[in-house]
């Protein structure tokens, strides 16, 4: 069955200047109840991989450097 990929504006933003995933930090990935964050190993930065967000905010709250911001998903804004 043919599959198309539809782009989606995602609610979690990561400030790559502040993110310390390249030093081994995975806090935001660890605390997400829906497991939607991941580390991009080519860049050593965290990012939102799946648009499946409850905007519950542990990722933002628990980030040690304040790199993560959770927006309200566009559909609800």
């Amino acid at each position, binding site marked *: 069955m043919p599959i198309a990929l539809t782009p989606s504006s995602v609610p979690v933003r990561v400030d790559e200047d502040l993110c310390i995933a390249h030093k081994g930090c995975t806090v935001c990935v660890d605390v997400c109840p829906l497991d939607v964050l991941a580390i991009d190993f080519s860049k050593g930065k965290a990012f939102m991989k799946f648009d499946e967000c409850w905007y519950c905010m*542990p990722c933002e709250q628990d980030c040690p450097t304040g790199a993560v911001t959770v927006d309200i998903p566009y*559909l609800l804004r």
Partner: protein
Amino acid sequence: MDTLRQTHYQTVDVLVIGGGTAGPMAAVKAKEANPALRVLLLEKANVKRSGAISMGMDGLNNAVVPGFATPEQYVKEITTANDGIVNQATVMAYAQNSYPMIEELDRWGVKFEKDETGDFAMRKVHHMGTYVLPMPEGHDIKKVLYRRLKRARVEITNRLVATRLLLAQDGSIAGAMAFDCRTGEFHVIRAKSVVLSTGAAGRLGLPSSGYLFGTYENPTNAGDGYSMAYHAGAELSGIECFQINPLIKDYNGPACAYVTGPFGGYTTNSKGERFIECDYWSGQMMQEFYDELQGGNGPVFLKLDHLAEETISTIETILHTNERPSRGRFHEGRGTDYRQQMVEMHISEIGLCSGHSASGVWVDEHAATTVAGLYAAGDLACVPHNYMLGAFVYGKLAGESAAARCAQVELAEVDEAQVVAERLRVWAPLERKDGLPPSQVEYKLRRMVNDYLQPPKVTRKMEIGLARFEAIRADLDRLQAPGPHELMRAMEVHAIRDCAELAARASLYRTESRWGLYHNRTDYPERNDADWFVHVQVKKVDGVMTCFKRTVAPYIVPLGEHEMSAYQRLRVGPKQAQEATAAGELATASA
């Protein structure tokens, strides 16, 4: 996929599935009951931040505190709020254990609001008694639980998704099966007793925004436990008593009239008039809410704009730092300020959740289900209106019961046929080269749930719904997952489909209306106590989803005729409305 995929076996004494609220308490209490037992807490996400209270909670909705209420009064209140269909013994077990649990949590470091003398600062929100205890600093509750888990030396595994329970030859519990949502590896966990505490079926209805994960409940709670209990042959009860909540329009947080109520906030129609006497969530309250929403005076609002600045600041601090802290961000984006505007409200999608209504896995007053060795606690276990404190109390009861069983039984043999069948089912979406994306199947399924099951319930619509769910069953065999994460979503669709069928069949079976909007059947509009003063149970019998009646056990706390109808009189009359509104404004002016 690849040949590296493995199956891991391990053996414990007590397996607790779900590490949100009830689960950690069950694990700690099982370990405290017998420190020699191997207790494993299995969590789909991460125990540090999982479940309905991942960001904390702003209060206890149903605290039975001496001096404010007795267990007997509480049992009456919930019997009335749930239109008489309760197993009072379970509600009584909660009520009697409620205060000792508050004291224990207080010792553990959970912060409850206290007055200047150090007593708990109780607030009245319910129709009859006083049961609300605020927790303005309740954001730390998961940290407190995590410390207790570490202290009790409970073993924890994160990111394991349980999919089926393992049964012994005699139908009792033998363990559970799960897969790792990071690696896809399959796990078989043998246990003498299992506690299910996987939360609500929160991804049943589709929020009107269309965003699959914008649900009232934590969307990780997809109904996995309801599905597992059903396939293990456990009785489920009150499934037709849906969960529907009054929420902020478009935002999935509660408008929290019951938090703002004690400060002077209230629910109004578009004219700024009160229309309900009591903001405590019940089916009857939701029916009045729905009528106002659909009527000429709709929509419905939360009114705070008459309150003093310091009161509003306090409300903002509570509502924007606990439970759903992104709420402030939502209001900011819409330009809503409690000082100037009323907050538009709406009703939530439907769900199954005994914590709020009564839909759950049947348990007795020791948290035992009808499957030997299987216990249930929290939003999933049928103890009506149990909320967070009920999850803690039934977590404790389940943990203690599960530990006690370990001394009495031998570990059951594993039936390899069950393992092989389940592993085949779980890995199938990974094996398919071509197929349907789980997100699309989920969207369609949940849209059908809205179209055909959302109250008011109509017989013919629910029958069509069942036919649609049956058609989607065939689509499950076409689900394709490129990786373990998508596999988690695919297996959740299986559970959601089971819950949709449970919801439809239980609703069709009860041919009367009860619990206000929760089970409002337009073609059977009257309550019919002669035929339906019973629990409706659903169970898998010879592979078929079967509904039957279970007698309501004789009340241990009898109710008078007048007391039984208290929740039927929630609507404020027109003259009363003006007086109530005026009185509210007067109180504010003098505050």
